């Protein structure tokens, strides 16, 4: 499915594992930006918005040089207020925890982009604006126009979580492989 912001109820139809593209405006935010937004308010219209966990390299405040996703799990405890305000999609890498999975139920999705693919992402991005620039390049909120960024639905609005499914299978496999272990120290 091709998604375009502002996002609406179409995201509720998605299932974990679906491949989608995302176009339109996204807002970058990492740890510091989340904390600032909780204190001072969200500097963009959150209704239907997509928030991208990313600390980009931007040249001259206008050219996206590199903009791959950062580890989303750092924002596990910091995302509820965005979803409460109407944000429909969180974009990042590595998955998020059960708290976010519950917060997404019935209202939004977590979309996974390929970690490290900063040049690929940059080729499909244009800078439109910036907020909280005093936080520094990586932590500022950049307003970015996206053109068909290829993403995987990691967590859907029905509690489906591809990362968790993979993690549970990996744990089972690990226990089978190493079940004879009894020693101390680990």
């Amino acid at each position, binding site marked *: 499915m091709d998604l375009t912001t502002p996002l609406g109820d179409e995201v509720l139809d998605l299932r974990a*594992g679906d*491949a989608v593209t995302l176009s339109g405006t996204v807002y970058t935010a990492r740890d510091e930006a989340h904390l600032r937004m909780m204190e001072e308010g969200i500097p963009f219209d959150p209704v239907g918005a997509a928030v991208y966990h*990313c*600390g*980009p*390299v931007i*040249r001259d405040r206008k050219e996206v*040089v*590199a*903009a*791959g996703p*950062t*580890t989303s*799990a750092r924002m596990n405890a910091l995302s509820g207020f965005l979803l409460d305000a109407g944000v429909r999609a969180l974009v990042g*890498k*590595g*998955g998020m925890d059960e708290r976010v999975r519950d917060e997404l139920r019935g209202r939004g999705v977590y979309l*996974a*982009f*390929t*970690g*490290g*693919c*900063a*040049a*690929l*992402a*940059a*080729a499909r991005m244009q800078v439109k604006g910036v907020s909280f620039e005093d936080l*520094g*390049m*990586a932590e500022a909120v950049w307003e970015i126009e996206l053109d068909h960024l*290829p993403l*995987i639905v*990691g967590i859907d609005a029905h509690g489906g979580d*591809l*990362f968790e*499914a*993979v*993690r549970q*299978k*990996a*744990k089972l*496999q*690990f226990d089978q*492989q*190493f079940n004879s*272990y009894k*020693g*101390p*120290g*680990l």
Partner: protein
Amino acid sequence: MMESASSGLLEAVAAATASALHEAETSLPADVNAAIGRALEREQDPTARAQLENIRENIRYAGERGLPLCQDTGVPVVYLTLPPSVPATADLYEAVAEGVRRATAEVPLRPNVVDPLTRENTKDNTGGGMPTIHVRPGEELTVTVLPKGAGAENCSRIAMLLPSQKGEIARFVAETMLLAGGKPCPPVVLGVGIGATFDGAAALAKEALLLSIDEMDPFEQDLCDAVNALGIGPMGLGGAVTALAVKVKRGHCHTASLPVAVNVQCWASRRATRKVEVEQWT
């Protein structure tokens, strides 16, 4: 006298460091590229394949445009080999730092280096103990850079095993990846350091990331198979290839010790080396 005699050499070291960083940040070594190609041959799952296709397209874009492969351009880890005629002076360390500052401005690199407690950014990727510089004696003066991103570095672990636990090394390595999941941007390369001391094992693990991943010995292959059996896959979304390779470096250790360190490296296993001609300045 030393300073004037060596100023050309110091400039050459700074230039070599900047040049190696430029190469490492914008292109992958041939062995890592080849391993990503082999991973794509093995993967059947469409989601896993999509991740690897994105990675390949990203490598191509970065190469065409001369831009960083990843926005986390990392912190610089630098390995120097010095011939007997070149002493490891403070000037030499400063020349390496100067190379880092140049690359930060020119590539450009994201300024990632901060004070650990105040979190104040130095803005040029240098600082106290940064770049980390490892010096070894050698026949030639070489500068090797290994820019290290935090996503993967943060998933690294060390264990002080008992001497009777050498059979548990595979468990510790696989457990490290089980805990890491998709966070370190798999398919990863794992550097494993076995032996030495607490600090030495970590250094060996990182040095193992400098080894070619074209081949693995049977022990390394066993560790790699144990990791790949977990099915974590590219980006933690499931798949056959969680690790492109596991490389091991060993050191002798205390008879009562068995330190094991795992340094996790993302698919962008970046490294580059420059040789610096010494004769003309000494």
